[in-house]
């Protein structure tokens, strides 16, 4: 683990250097974050990488996107990328989602980074609500936009008390709430943003990614950075880190599955599928399609195993 961690830090340092270099080359470059802010962000990111799962407070800046629209993820991406980076931005798994398009445009226009929709070309993938179906590797960084970074808010509203609970790893009330949920409802009803224990120490909110994506964070080869701009928090899952969804020994963690669901376009069953409501009036009515559009498109184009 230490080798990949130091690699990640090296990557961040290199990103900082490349950014400073490109600024020296073109001083007229107008960014949307000043260099002091980027330095502060990088320090917060490094702290987050060193203490996996710990929510590092930072002086979140106002972005040209509203808070709640990916301002935290955008700040992380802007602090990471330079002109030699390749950026993929998705929303709900879709490169063409309106907000993904807007964020991608802001990043590429102000940093000189190039854009892609192909995962394997990207150095940084910024995402809202999904992890790409393709496995990222150790050279890639996943930046997740986080609306609510606090996993315990459902059981405690007082912020000072929440600080104590994390500091003392006092997650007892979280466990009780999961138990009560199971007893009342027969299943654990938490849908997205499922709480996970990271590195055996801190419980995190897995943004609102679906449960489908949660197991893919466990021992992932890539670095995941979580940015909550409105709540001014950054946290990280370094490569090869334990990420365990909170559940009981006799209650297996369940991902989203619907019997018989299969992508109407590429035929995938082992992917996160979204339902097209029956009343829409299109060819896919009442059927399922992949939420990761570029993955689905590539499957159709290349192997025809649908």
């Amino acid at each position, binding site marked *: 683990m230490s080798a990949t961690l130091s690699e990640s830090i090296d990557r961040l340092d290199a990103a900082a250097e490349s950014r400073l270099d490109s600024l020296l080359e073109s001083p007229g470059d*107008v*960014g*949307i*974050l*000043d*260099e*002091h*802010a980027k330095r502060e962000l990088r320090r917060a990111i490094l702290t987050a990488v060193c203490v996996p799962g710990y929510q590092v*407070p930072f*002086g*979140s*800046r*106002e*972005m040209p996107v*509203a*808070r709640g*629209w990916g*301002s935290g993820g955008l700040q992380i991406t802007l602090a990471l990328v330079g002109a030699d980076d390749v950026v993929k931005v998705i*929303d*709900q*798994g*879709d490169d063409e*989602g*309106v907000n993904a*398009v*807007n964020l991608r445009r802001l990043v590429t226009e102000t940093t000189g980074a190039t854009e892609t929709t192909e995962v394997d070309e990207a150095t940084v993938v910024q995402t*809202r609500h*999904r992890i790409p179906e393709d496995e990222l590797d150790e050279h890639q960084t996943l930046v997740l936009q986080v*609306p*609510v970074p606090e996993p315990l808010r*459902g059981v405690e509203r007082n912020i*000072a008390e929440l*600080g104590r609970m994390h500091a003392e790893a006092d997650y007892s009330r979280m466990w009780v709430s999961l138990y*009560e949920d199971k*007893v*009342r*409802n*027969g*299943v654990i*009803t*938490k*849908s*997205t*943003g499922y709480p996970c224990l990271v590195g055996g120490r801190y419980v995190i909110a897995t943004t*609102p990614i*679906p449960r489908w994506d949660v197991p893919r964070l466990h021992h992932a080869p890539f670095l995941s950075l979580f940015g909550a701009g*409105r709540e*001014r928090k950054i946290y990280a899952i370094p490569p090869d880190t334990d990420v365990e969804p909170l559940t009981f020994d006799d209650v297996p963690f369940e991902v*989203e599955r619907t019997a018989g669901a299969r992508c109407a376009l590429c035929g995938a069953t082992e992917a*996160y*599928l979204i*339902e*097209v*409501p029956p009343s*829409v*009036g*299109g060819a*896919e*009515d009442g059927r399922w399609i992949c*939420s990761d559009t570029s993955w689905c498109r590539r499957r159709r184009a290349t192997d025809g195993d649908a």
Partner: protein
Amino acid sequence: MGYAAARGGLDAIAAAEDLVRDARDLADSPWLGLDQLIDRQRLAVDRVMGEGGLWDPRLAARALQQAEGDTVEASHLLRSYRATLPRFSYSHPVDMDDAKVLRRIVPAFRNPPGPQLLGRTTDYTGRLLDRTDDDLARERAEKRVMESTFDADGDVVSNATDTAGSASSASVGLGDRRHRRLLEVLRDMDLLVDRRRTDDPKPVDITRAAVRPPALRSAVLATMARAETGALVNLWYRNILGPDGYIHEVTLGEVRHAELPVTVTHPHTGGPVDIGVVRATEVEAIEDLDGADEDRTRFDAGYGLCFGHNEKKAIAMANLDIACHRDGGGGNGGSELEQSILMTTDGLDASGFLEHLKLPHYVTFRSMVDRKMAMRAAGRSDTAVDGAPVPADPREGDCA
């Protein structure tokens, strides 16, 4: 595709932007100029500067223009502009007693030390929709100024009638003088709890630090100074009439609108240099302490100060400052009210998060539907065993 509403692509975004720009730039009526906004929509410009945390009337007017009059949106434009600028230095502390007073009222006494200086206000005017013709209004105003002992800025032009009981006249020429504060009088009368500190803690810079409760008082005050006006007014009123409450009404000691200098250290000479003037509204609120553990023989005070002329905001702020102190916040250990102030009054935070609900949420929604189905399946198997399904608890929801 059937779910096209959730998709857009660059073309759709560009088209939406064009609709805004075309409607704006090709409108039949001429642009509302920046000078017009600054002169005639003064309070809106002041509000945007306050909530945007940046004093620059022309930029604030431009932001209002671009935002089609939406003050929160304009504040956002101002703040994200400021985020692009490096910060070189902090200004020197200002003694508010050195500020040039444009308006000052003291509701707590009929004859306070110093003047009751009404200044520019509609507080005492009937709220009648004025439909006077513009030209006629100007004609009348010109006549009024000719006959007046004061010019349009309220400065004296003749001493003819400066004798009328000054307690309520729109008194003049007093702006440059230092006015003794009501708090000083109360202190002399030994009627005020003394909470002045002897140390000099560095104020928290809320634009650089992620402020969380428990927080220092300076952080709570700075948060309110930049808060959305309506949010502060609502939080204050909620504490008066809402289901929970910390506030009982206070008496205002000072309400001031004043000009103050901005002084920084010159980077080369190292000496102080004035770089401009800002206007601010300042309020001191006198609290009649009535708690069992409080000093019932004395008063306490809350403080409010914000950019521009915004009395609603400064009054709410002063009320909430003392309420927060009494509730155990503002460096006093933390409180619920303090968390409400710190976490819920920022216009950009609240509006941004509210508006993000318009973004696609179909990935998360599909996951919620999955759980509904899982609950039903579990309920069916429970029914088979126990005869009755366990009702679902609808309180747990996903906020994303």
